């Protein structure tokens, strides 16, 4: 595949749409929600993730932060994906996502992965995998606690 088409795969239209029009950008009341701060110390990206969990279910997810198109679009997609999922399901999808962006075999049937499959393009850009996984790591950290 040429570099140009690699670039186009990295910056798919759906990714840029999430970057320009992020879903779930904002904050949740700290009394109702978990707040997780996560940095990528090597590049300066930061995310603050808010997760509202009731009866082992993620009922609301919002984020704020600064970063590149890949990290912010990934945060937008992740929050969309985990809303309404159980903790177990959210963590399982996170595992699937992690395998996908590392270029490993992944289960694309158990869950409707929707927009997040667009982030597959990062497998060709090893330096950017950390951008894609930042928000997901924040989510895992929050739900593991």
């Amino acid at each position, binding site marked *: 595949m040429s570099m140009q088409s690699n*670039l186009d795969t*990295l*910056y798919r*239209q759906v990714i*840029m749409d999430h970057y*320009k029009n992020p879903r779930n950008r904002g904050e949740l009341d700290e009394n109702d929600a978990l707040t997780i701060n996560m940095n990528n110390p090597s590049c300066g990206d*930061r995310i603050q993730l808010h997760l509202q969990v009731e009866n082992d279910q993620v009922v609301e997810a919002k984020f704020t932060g*600064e*970063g590149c198109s890949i990290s912010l679009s990934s945060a937008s997609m992740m929050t969309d994906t985990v809303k309404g999922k159980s903790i177990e399901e959210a963590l399982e999808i996170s595992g699937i996502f992690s395998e996908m962006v590392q270029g490993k075999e992944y289960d694309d049937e158990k869950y409707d992965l929707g927009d997040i499959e667009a982030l597959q393009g990062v497998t060709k850009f090893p330096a950017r995998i950390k951008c894609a996984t930042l928000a997901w790591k924040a989510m895992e950290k929050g739900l593991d606690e």
Partner: protein
Amino acid sequence: MFDVQKVREQFPILHQEVNGHPLVYLDNSATSQKPIQVIEALEEYYNSNNSNVHRGVHTLGSKATDGYEGARDRVQSFINAKNREEIIFTRGTTTALNIVASSYANAKLNEGDEIVLTPMEHHSNIIPWQQVAKATGAVLKYIPLQPDGTISLEDVKETVTDKTKIVTMVHVSNVLGTMNPVKEVGEIAHNHGAIMIVDGAQSSPHKKVDVQDLNCDFFAFSAHKMCGPTGIGALYGKKELLDDMEPFEFGGEMIDEVGLYESTWKELPYKFEGGTPIIGGAIGFAKAIDYLEEIGLENIEAHEKMLVQYAMERLVEHEDVEVYGPPADQRAGILTFNIKGVHPHDVATVLDSQGVAVRAGHHCARPLMNWLGCTATARASFYLYNTKSDVDAFVDALVTAKEYFGDVYAE
């Protein structure tokens, strides 16, 4: 006569394609490439002379010792230190600054003493001092930056007081390319009885450094940014200060007598070089110095000045490219920038797709990023083997990035 094409012939790594384009390497402030002379010197050492130093009675031991101690002489003459024992080999600038923080500052500073620095420091010249402040009760004071990312001597005079014990700053900023007047700052420091420390990581590769003329008390730098191998650098310190300091690491090589409960240390510089030293690295470092001096530091500096001026001229027509730092005639060959509306990681990825290597991120200078009001920037940094066509390729790739993201945003 400086001939950039001849220079390029000596750097094997430059002659390759990256992502289908000729490599344009503009990440020199992170690390420089190595000329064939340095690569061959390392090869020769490991092929023919490898041995431990200072103890072998055998022939190879003498050869390795000669190479290692000869390297110290080269570093001494390179920065014009008065005595050879004022040169301590370290892992690099970071370790050199940590030696001063740990063995000098932690021992000498007391509560209320001041350490003066600038917000443009690399993390390696901030965090050791934060740790010293925590350990001793000393306080950190920052000299404010001018809007163009320089410092004024008036502000230095305002900030440095009789309580100041240490003034430390970068010779050249790794982000803004600012060249600090460290000689004049050192005079102010000395007038108040403070010592002057210079982080020379970004100056030593590009300009002639004379530590006696600068009259600094410590000077730290790294070989890998100046055509030498990674894993070695040097700390210069005035003999009377080094003599009065305790070692940084304890173990083999650095001892005089060892008893069950007490030991004594070797003389300078060996008391600061515990363990088997970086022998191959030092030999490569010395060869890099030979190489740079053969080309001429003044030629290298002039060449980079020409490149950065040319790059800034070419960028003037691109209003959406914001360049940070002082005007071209007042900066080293470093160009830190952002394209409005495009994150620097995304810029760097598109540039890389065109074969152009730049750095994107916070450049280990978070406080400076805060001052600039951004979380990250992209940076192109030039060295002796870069050409005007590298600058053209860089600017073309920036245009590609702008168009690319213009299109994807528009979709």
